[in-house]
C-alpha cells in the first residue's frame, strides 16, 4: 500500500511532527514498504478472535484513597525550559 505525500503530511500533522521535504519523501517510501509488509496480516481470518490489549489478568487496579507525598513542586519544574510563578510556561494559545 503506497502512501501519498498528502497522507504523510496529514499523519505528521496529527503527530505534531515537523518534517523537512526530504524527510517527507523518505518516510513516504519507508512507511509504504512497512505497510506493504504488514498486509500479510490480512491473510489471517480474525473475525472471531478477540483483541489482546494487555496480557495481564488485571483489571481496574485501585489503591486506597490515602494522601501521600509526591514530587516537590520545585523538583517537578526543575527540568522545564521555561517557568513562571511555579508553573510551566507556554506560548499563548489564544489570540
Amino acid at each position, binding site marked *: 500500500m503506497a502512501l501519498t505525500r498528502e497522507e504523510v503530511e496529514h499523519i505528521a500533522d496529527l503527530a505534531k511532527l515537523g518534517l523537512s521535504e526530504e524527510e517527507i519523501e523518505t518516510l513516504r517510501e519507508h512507511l509504504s514498504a512497512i505497510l506493504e509488509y504488514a498486509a500479510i496480516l490480512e491473510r489471517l481470518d480474525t473475525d472471531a478472535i*478477540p483483541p489482546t490489549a494487555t496480557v495481564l489478568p488485571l483489571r481496574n487496579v485501585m489503591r486506597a484513597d490515602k494522601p501521600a507525598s509526591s514530587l516537590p513542586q520545585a523538583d517537578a519544574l526543575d527540568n522545564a525550559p521555561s517557568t513562571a510563578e511555579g508553573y510551566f510556561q507556554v506560548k499563548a494559545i489564544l489570540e
Partner: protein
Amino acid sequence: MRLHELTIHGALELLRRRDISATELTQALLDRIVDVDNDIKAYLTLTPETALQEARKADELRAAGTDGALLGIPLAIKDNICLAGVPTTCGSRILESFVPPYDATVVTQLRHAGAVFLGKTNLDEFAMGSSTENSAFFTTHNPWDLTRVPGGSSGGSAAALIADEALGAFGSDTGGSVRQPASLCSIAGMKPTYGRVSRYGLVAFASSLDQIGPLGKDVTDCALLLNVIARYDPRDSTSLDAPVPDYTTALRPEIKGLRIGVPREYFAAGIQPGVEKAVRNAIQVLADLGADIAETSLPHTEYALPAYYLLATAEASANLARYDGIKYGYSATDAPDIWEAYRRTRQHGFGAEVKRRIMLGTYALSAGYYDAYYLKAQKVRTLIKQDFDQAFQQFDVLVGPTSPTVAFRIGEKVDDPLQMYLSDVFTLSQPLAGICALSLPCGFVSSPVCPVLSPGQGVGTAGTGRKVRGMANGLPVGLQISGPALGEEIVLRVAYAYEQATEWHTRKPKIKEEH
C-alpha cells in the same frame, strides 16, 4: 584473575571473605572503563565520584557486619532507566539535558541491595532499534569485532559487560532489546514475564510490552540480579502481585525428563547456517543431559513482526506525545506560536527511527485505519499468545536461536528499516505473549573474512602478522530459552544446566592486544 573480570557471584565471595574491598573493585572497573571504553563506547554517562562514594559506604556497611544481596557490586544501567540526579537521555537529543528527580523502582531496589552505579549505557534512541546505531550520540562497538554492532537496543549494557566494564547490567526489552544484544555480545540476558518487574522510572516506549531485564556474565548472575528487581510495585499498576521465589534455588543442573520444544518456525529461511549449527548443537547438549526434545510449531510466528511493529509503534506514538518541549527536554525557542513550537521541538529533538515509528503508530491509530491495522494487530496478538499457551501445555520450555544472524556490520542495515526489524524476528513474539525468555551464549561462528580497516581506526589489519583485535574467536551465537508466564525458574534451570555443560560463557574478546 583481575578484578574487573569477576562475575557478581565471584566478587561477592571475595567481598564476603574480606579478600577485596568494594572500593578496590569499583576502582578496578573505573580503570577498565578508562582503558577500553574509547574503543567500545558503551557508556553515555559515567558517575565515578558517586560510584566510589557508594563503594566506600558498602565497605563501611560490611565492616559494621551488614551484608546485602549486591553489597559493593558495580553495575551499569541502560540510559532509559532513571537514576535521580544523573542525566537520563534515552539516547535522544530531546532528553539530552534531562536530569530525573527520582529513582526508578528498580534502582531503589538495587540501592537497598547495596549496588554501586558506574554509569548509564548507550542505547538506540528511546530503545527503538537493534544496533545502537539509532543513538543520537554515537554507536557502540561490538567488543568481539569493533566494526560490528553490539545489537540493541540495550547494546551499551551488553557491550560493557562482555568488555568487563561492569560486573552486571540492566537493560529493557520491548521486542528483544535485552536478548538480541546479549546474543550478539555473548552474555546472558533475560526478559522477565510482563509485570514481574516494575516499570516505574523506565522511560516508556510501548507500555504493554516494555520490561526491564538483567544482563549477566553468566546465568547465576542473571538470577542474582533478578532476585533484587522482581517485585510487586504499587507505583506500577501493571506490576504483578505474585510471590517472588529465590531464583538462585532454580540453579540446579538437572533437566532429566524436562520437556523441551523446538519450534520449527525458528529455523526458517534467513537464519545463517553457522547460527543454525550452533543452536542445533546446543539442543543436542540438552538432549544429552536427559531432556526430552521434540519439534513443535508456533504457527503464527511469521505474523509477529508486522503485529509487533503496528502495536509497539501505536503505543510509542502515544507515549512520545509527552515530548512537547514544555515540561522537560529540548525546546525549540524560535517558533512563532505553540503549535509550531511543538512541531519544531519534535522535528529537531527526535531522530529518524523515532520519527518513523511515531508516524507508523499514528497512522495505525488514525481514523479509517484503526480497525485495519491496530485492532487487526491486537487480534493477531491473541493468536500468537494462544500458540504459546498451547505449546506450554506440552513443553516446559521452548528453545531456538535468539537472533537469525551474528553481529552485523555497523552501517549495514541503517538505510533499510525492514532488514533491521528482521534482526528481532525471533524475539518479538515473547513480549507479545507476555512470557519470559533468556538468551545465553551457545557458540561462535568464525568470521569468513577479517574486515579490512582503514588506517586511523586504531585496529590492527589482517595480513600484517599482528593479531586483529576481537577476531580471535569469531562472532557469538545466542540460544534463546522461552518459558511460560512466571516461568523464570524453569528457564533459569535449563540455562544453568546448559551453561554448566559448556564453556562458551567463559570466552572473552581480545579488546586490546595483551602486552
